[in-house]
């Protein structure tokens, strides 16, 4: 009997502590009063800060932090308080990360870095009326579903279908005489999404796809000799890789080992391959990739961003970083446009920002004159880059 009592007491302690210590803070977030007319906005976001995809999460966090620091140091009336939670690129953890941010009082969000976790919390953002724009979650499931549109959810990157279409269009315009093979990851939302649209668009553009069954899954993402041999036997001289950079790095290595040297062509998931630890960057020489951002571009905004990022973190920013950087500035611009200040009605913030985003044009490092559609998709021009001497160089 006493043991029972002890167990009960122990549980009581743990639960009340746990429940109460966090219970008080979930109040939707208030504007912090500041005397000088500035207002601080709580900006949240989640992404993989541990695990396989952490390069993306860290790039986004670093770049967003850089933008926030710049804004806070400037004379802007809008200041940000930025917090990024780890979601391990997993839907279940993304819900926890979202809840943590909600408890913290997040007002505006960078959504999630990866598609899978974004899809899991898209509806929550919509229900709670928190404005969110994802730097890199490219699945359409983040901004709308078959049955409904999430009016407050936006994207800074291209959607998967658009990437597939854009890749096929680019090849049709510039690499039309190539025989194309595709290696993709069939159990990945992102990869399968790009693949599907690419195949459809390639057929429409009469591209010569000689091998399109190069599917692999998470469990078979270490040995690609089967797919590469099949591609080689089919006579392919261009291999399209709509996958993340980690398996892609292995594909490049294994292709070299078997003396197979086609042109490799990736999409935005390929970004980051040069910073992969232990990767011989010479393998990536001549690799095409479709990205809205090239770090070597000479426009003022890009030069400034790349320089600041390098100074702070010691590496060249990739496309995820650039998208995140743009997200923060786009949010700032929208907040300024609606004249956000102390005492602004929190309830209407999401709608007002959404209305701004669908009507404004934004100039950032990932493109000029970006606009957003009602469904949350961005409209901007993709750029193709080629890796030359270990850096991105614009292909055109």
């Amino acid at each position, binding site marked *: *009997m*006493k*043991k*029972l009592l*002890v*167990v*009960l007491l122990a*549980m*009581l302690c743990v*639960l*009340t502590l*746990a*429940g*109460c210590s*966090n*219970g008080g*803070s*979930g109040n939707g977030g208030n504007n912090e009063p500041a005397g000088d007319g500035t207002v601080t906005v709580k900006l949240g976001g989640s992404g993989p*800060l*541990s695990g396989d995809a952490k390069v993306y999460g860290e790039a986004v966090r670093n770049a967003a932090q850089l933008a926030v620091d710049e804004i806070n140091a400037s004379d802007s009336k809008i200041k940000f308080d930025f917090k990024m*939670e*780890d979601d391990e690129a*997993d*839907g*279940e953890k993304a*819900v*926890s*990360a*979202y*809840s*943590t941010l*909600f*408890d913290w009082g997040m007002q505006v969000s960078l959504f999630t870095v990866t598609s*899978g976790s974004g*899809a*899991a919390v*898209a*509806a929550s953002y919509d229900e709670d009326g928190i404005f969110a724009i994802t730097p890199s979650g490219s*699945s359409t*499931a983040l901004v709308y*579903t*078959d*049955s409904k549109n999430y009016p407050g959810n936006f994207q800074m990157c291209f959607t998967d279908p658009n990437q597939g279409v854009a890749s096929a269009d680019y090849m049709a315009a510039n690499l039309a005489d190539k025989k194309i093979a595709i290696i993709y990851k*069939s*159990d*990945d*939302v992102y*990869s*399968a*999404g790009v693949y*599907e649209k690419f195949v459809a668009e390639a057929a429409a553009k009469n591209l010569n796809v000689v091998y399109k069954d190069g599917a692999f*899954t*998470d*469990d078979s993402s270490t040995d690609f000799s089967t797919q590469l041999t099949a591609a080689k036997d089919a006579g392919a001289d261009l291999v399209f890789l709509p996958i993340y950079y980690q398996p892609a790095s292995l594909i490049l290595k294994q292709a070299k080992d078997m003396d197979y040297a086609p042109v490799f062509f990736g999409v935005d998931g390929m970004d980051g391959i040069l910073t992969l630890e232990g990767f011989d960057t010479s393998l990536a020489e001549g690799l095409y990739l479709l990205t809205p951002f090239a770090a070597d571009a000479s426009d003022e905004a890009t030069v400034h961003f790349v320089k600041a990022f390098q100074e702070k973190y010691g590496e060249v920013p990739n496309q995820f970083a650039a998208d995140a950087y743009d997200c923060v500035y786009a949010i700032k611009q929208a907040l300024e446009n609606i004249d956000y200040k102390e005492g602004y009605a929190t309830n209407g913030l999401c709608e007002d920002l959404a209305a701004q985003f669908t009507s404004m044009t934004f100039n950032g490092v990932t493109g000029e004159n970006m606009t957003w559609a009602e469904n949350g998709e961005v409209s901007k021009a993709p750029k193709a880059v080629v890796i030359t001497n270990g850096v991105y160089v614009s292909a055109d």
Partner: protein
Amino acid sequence: MKNIFADLFSKKNRSRTISFLMVTCAYILIEVIMNTVGMSRLFKSLLVPTCCYIILALSLNLVVGISGELSLGHAGFMAIGAFSAVIVSGLTVSSITNDILRLVVSAACGSIISGIFGFIISVPVLKLSGDYLAIVTLAFGQIIKSLITNIYLGFDANGIQMSFVTNTLSLEGGKMLLSGPMGATDTAKISNFTSGFVMILITLFVIYSMINSRHGRAIMSARDNRIAAESIGISITRTKTLAFVVSSILAGMAGALYALNYSTLQPAKFDFNTSILALVYVVFGGLGNINGTIVSTVVLYVLPELLRSLQDYRMLIYAIVLIVVMQMTNSAKIKELMEKLGKKIFKKGEVKE
């Protein structure tokens, strides 16, 4: 009155009584906190998944702890239960408008289908001895995940449509239920904490009824000494199959509860890691120890979330905690200490043999 009490806390029933009391008290306490002080969103979001993992770990404990076989593919059963439930729930969304009823129907279907798969696997495999079940379940988990990753299933006015590997469906105003690697999207969230609590009670009831029955004793005897058990006429295959099928049914239920708690669910979630995670919970709580499993699941599932404030060091600390606790529970000295404590807490006369 005293007799009932003594009976509840007799050596035979003590664990069962504590299990039910612990779970019920925790439930009441959480409900009270939620309705009075209020609970943070994070904790609310953790309630249902914690219930799911408790059920999963308990079901796995039935195989690993009580029946003495190693299953490395319980996530596979969870996946079957999860996606069956999503499909059933999606199909009946207009015909069964009551959420609770729909949850019950979906979970029941998920459990049954998972149980059928459990039976199919165990029939050939449990006839063998040794580690074959571990190998087969390992493969099974992977196969199930790959299969679901390639299924496209939807329905419209013309009925249910399905395609495999590539999406060839053209729905007229209908709804996609499973879309390949995207998995289930736009699912109605009908699981809640109370349903999770009830399912844990059902799980506990099933497991304890089984342990304390003739079948349960047969299962444990087959675990402890196969030859001796066979010599007194116990069919090893039958008892192990029973334990395995019940376990797969419960895992399917956990999956159903889990799936209907999220608006989207990807098959990739139910990979080898999830199976191992469940195994970690079981080993941590003690093989065959029901209460230990519940406590370890709660602690290990909630811990990484509580450590969020540590930012980058979170997973490092989590790993260290795992190692430390494993070492501690394994050390003879600490076990002795715990036993002494246990003896002090318990009144000697009342319940000790």
